[in-house]
């Protein structure tokens, strides 16, 4: 595939864009290398063709362009920007172009040297077990065999870019083979034979489509964050976004999710944010155990790390690299969660390039195609049925960093149009240290949650009403508020502080299973539905303070322990001591669910 290599010569340099003059053919989005002579020797700087005009082409360079001069040679590869797929991806830390950073550090030291590209896959041997035999018919995406990769059975598949129907000519017997060694030969309808190894390439900007059908996402992707799973759930194969002003808790929320989410594989795309935050993840994950498997969390994680001071063109590519790796593991029937922080930095990378290309700018100088690019990125999330009947999913959650914290800006708006759930963080709540600072009234989800919908709607109405009362109370004071209104306010405040807020540092409270969420939500529901017997507001306030204190202890006690049962009994006793009746609508709900 890389036999026809044409070349060009640099005729212009502007920031991270070079213009070349070429003879022969150039392919849109193909990869080229700018040859640069430096005192440290020749360097090849990876670039991508992004515009062709006559015999000139513009390339975005994925590296610093310092030192490039007119006349420098550019080699064109005829290959689109691609990633390498195969066993050994899990646990890796890559830059936006799949360069393994720890290995790079071993070779280059503290700094990121230009033009050094290492093999993304470790040169390892894998225990291969064939699942086909000579004579079998296979098409793209079918398994040739499997290798154990940590806790997963990694399918070695017919490369997705082989579009014909093939006959297996030979396959190696079970045994240990190097990742780049030949494991099978397949023959197409014209008789051409293709040797297969455990690895192949796939262009990052093209979604992997080797499946039979796309299905509607329904099953919840459990995050173990109560507010999310109960009120604004995410579905496996769905999409959601987390916009919020700086410091509101986007990154922390994603970090919590990357640890606790009930999925097989998590891919973290640190896109144009702080390097220090990635360091926390990559130092801590190897030490943390995945409660589902008992193995280190790193074994189910891939980190794509193109932080804010790394080259901006590679930042643009990084989210696609992440999406492609996610789709690859989806093809093995696994549930993959892709977390991108922050999609605004990715959009800004597009804006920078668009500016250099002197395209006609849209709102806030973002390119006019911003919306469609964002839409097609989130479109890569999906639940699919694979050819063998199993299903796999990619769920995408992206943070958005709106300028000035104002959601009325192009990236947030374009994202809101396409995602299935919106978890908006509020400055007010983060300033009040109410974490996770997701605004419970403004956020929404189109997916079905783990708790009955009419009950959560009931609770949501309490929140709305409580919020109204709180607003009113600011004007008329506590004195001017009726006892009934005041109780609604106390109920909503109670719900907020013991259920919506969650202590991410508490060993128990930081991740709450769905089973437990359902259980304690029932207790909450009883409290919200209760009609109380209070004479004065002070009584009501003190009572709710007591309830809250008890409930926080209840939240801190381990699931299904004696302590948990005892606290629950205490709570329910306290409830019945002051309850005189139950709200009629709520009573009906309890009737019907029984």
């Amino acid at each position: 595939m890389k036999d026809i290599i044409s070349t060009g010569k640099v005729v212009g340099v502007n920031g991270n864009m070079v213009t070349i003059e070429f003879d022969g053919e150039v392919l849109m989005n193909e990869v080229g290398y700018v040859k640069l002579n430096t005192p440290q020797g020749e360097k090849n700087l990876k670039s991508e063709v992004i515009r062709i005009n006559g015999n000139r082409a513009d390339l975005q360079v994925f590296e610093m362009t310092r030192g490039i001069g007119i006349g420098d040679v550019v080699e064109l590869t005829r290959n689109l920007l691609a990633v390498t797929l195969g066993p050994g991806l899990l646990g890796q830390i890559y830059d936006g172009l799949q360069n393994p950073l720890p290995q790079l550090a071993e070779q280059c030291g503290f700094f990121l040297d230009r033009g050094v590209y290492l093999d993304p896959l470790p040169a390892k041997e894998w225990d291969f077990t064939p699942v086909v035999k000579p004579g079998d018919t296979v098409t793209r995406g079918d398994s040739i065999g499997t290798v154990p990769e940590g806790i997963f059975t990694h399918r070695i598949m017919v490369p997705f870019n082989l579009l014909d129907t093939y006959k297996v000519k030979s396959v190696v017997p079970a045994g240990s083979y190097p990742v780049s060694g030949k494991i099978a030969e397949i023959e197409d309808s014209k008789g051409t034979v293709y040797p297969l190894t455990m690895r192949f390439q796939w262009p990052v900007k093209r979604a992997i489509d080797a499946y039979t059908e796309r299905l509607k996402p329904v099953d919840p992707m459990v995050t173990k964050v109560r507010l999310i799973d109960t009120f604004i759930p995410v579905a496996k194969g769905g999409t959601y976004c987390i916009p919020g002003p700086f410091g509101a808790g986007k990154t922390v929320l994603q970090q919590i999710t990357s640890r606790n989410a009930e999925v097989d594989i998590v891919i973290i795309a640190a896109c144009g944010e702080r390097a220090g935050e990635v360091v926390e993840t990559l130092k801590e994950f190897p030490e943390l155990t995945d409660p589902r498997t008992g193995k280190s969390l790193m074994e189910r994680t891939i980190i794509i790390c193109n932080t804010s001071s790394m080259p901006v063109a590679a930042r643009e590519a990084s989210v696609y690299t992440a999406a492609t790796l996610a789709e690859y593991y989806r093809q093995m029937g696994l549930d993959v969660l892709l977390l991108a922080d922050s999609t605004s930095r990715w959009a800004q990378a597009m804006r920078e390039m668009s500016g250099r290309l002197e395209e006609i700018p849209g709102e806030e100088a973002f390119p006019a195609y911003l919306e469609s690019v964002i839409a097609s990125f989130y479109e890569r999330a999906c639940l699919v049925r694979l050819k063998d009947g199993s299903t796999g999913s990619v769920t995408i959650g992206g943070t958005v960093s709106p300028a000035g914290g104002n959601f009325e800006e192009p990236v947030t708006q374009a994202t809101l149009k396409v995602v299935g759930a919106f978890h908006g963080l509020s400055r007010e709540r983060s300033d009040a240290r109410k974490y996770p600072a997701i605004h419970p009234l403004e956020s929404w989800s189109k997916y079905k949650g783990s708790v009955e919908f009419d009950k959560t709607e009931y609770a949501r109405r309490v929140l709305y009403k409580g919020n109204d009362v709180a607003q009113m109370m600011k004007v008329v004071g506590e004195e001017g508020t009726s006892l009934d209104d005041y109780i609604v306010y106390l109920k909503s405040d109670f719900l907020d502080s013991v259920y919506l807020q969650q202590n991410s540092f508490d060993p128990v409270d930081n991740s709450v299973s769905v089973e437990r969420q359902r259980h304690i939500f029932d207790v909450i529901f009883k409290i919200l539905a209760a009609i109380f017997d209070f004479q004065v507001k002070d009584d009501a306030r003190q009572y709710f303070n007591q309830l809250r204190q008890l409930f926080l202890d209840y939240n801190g006690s381990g699931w299904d322990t004696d302590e948990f049962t005892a606290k629950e009994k205490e709570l329910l006793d306290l409830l019945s001591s002051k309850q005189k009746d139950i709200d009629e609508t709520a009573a009906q709900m309890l009737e019907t669910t029984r």
Partner: protein
Amino acid sequence: MRKVYSKIESIAGNVITVSADGIKYEDLAEVSSAHGRSLAQVIKLKDDKVALQVFAGGRGISTGDEVRFLGHPMRISFSDNLLGRIFNGGGQPRDNGPALTENMIEIAGPSVNPAKRIIPRNMVRTGIPMIDVFNSLVESQKLPIFSSSGEPYNELLARIAMQAEVDMIILGGMGLKYDDYLFFKDTLEEGGALSRTIFFVHTASDPIVECLLVPDVSLAVAEQFALQGKKVLVLLTDMTNFADAMKEIAITMEQVPSNRGYPGDLYSQLASRYEKAVDFEGAGSITILAVTTMPGDDVTHPVPDNTGYITEGQFYLKNGRIEPFGSLSRLKQQVNKDTREDHRALMDGMIKLYAAYKESMEKKSMGFRMSDWDTKLLKYGEIFEKELMALSVNIPLEKALDKGWEIFAECFMPEETGMRTELLKKFWPGKEEK
């Protein structure tokens, strides 16, 4: 070897164009005009046209002036001889000392491999309780001071510089008023810190392109010292001037602005500087403290806004104090667990009660009745502001914690503070005497 051209084809703002060949992107040239010599940097190559940004500005340059290409990008001398010296953004001496030419290093080099970074772990003590107790500064942190224009931000920077336990200080001044420059110089001199300080100063009257160079030059030098094992504190004031210089240049280059005239890459530009803050395993570190003045006192203005998205927290300077709300050190939890057992609890407890004080103040101003509790809070808030929050307070962390307990004891009963019983037993003042 070096080529000289004497036909400048266009001059627009600070940018000149010549026809030349063999020129590399970001190379330097020297432009000699009737007003003297200035460096210029290649910012665009197109066919045989080379666009250069002239550090001293385009004013007074004639089309017949000489442009001599130096064949290398912007560099700065690096050695211990820099210590105690004062330079401009271009690296030329501003004091009367000799120009330095030994051991030239490139500025704005590549970024640190994230896999080589380590989790920050050392506190930088400043003697300012609002920092040490409530928002500890951590070695390798990047932290801005968000300030409205009248606030004493340079005084604050100078104080931190004097008191922080670091090996050396690099002060990068951008659009600095000459008086402020003298103030820094005098303060550091009086405190005997001048010999471990390097200045890179652009004053308000200097050419604007030099303003752009200040952070890169400061940080390149800092990086070298850090690699040699030094703990370096870099002070940058005022980054809003830096951003405004970028805006001005972007507009003369006819770039499409994104937000209030600032270029679309403002975030990346700021980030590539702030991300130089680092702790090198087995060597030294760079900590960055920067002033960001907020035009119109508006934190959503593009400069403080983009900064907040990059840095690890921020200090809000308001009414001559570091505001406890809004201010945040995102790295404090890495260090405040190992200081003294009451540190975290006291930090949270004091802030909670201070928030309650603010509520009481509000009620008072609306004419609601003050309860006993409100009265206690009012007393507490006042003492807190005077004895811990005022910038004039200068005590070590442990003293500040003791002070916190004293203030509590002066205003409240132990159980009213919400502090855990075992801490009250150990730290409540006056226990030993009884």
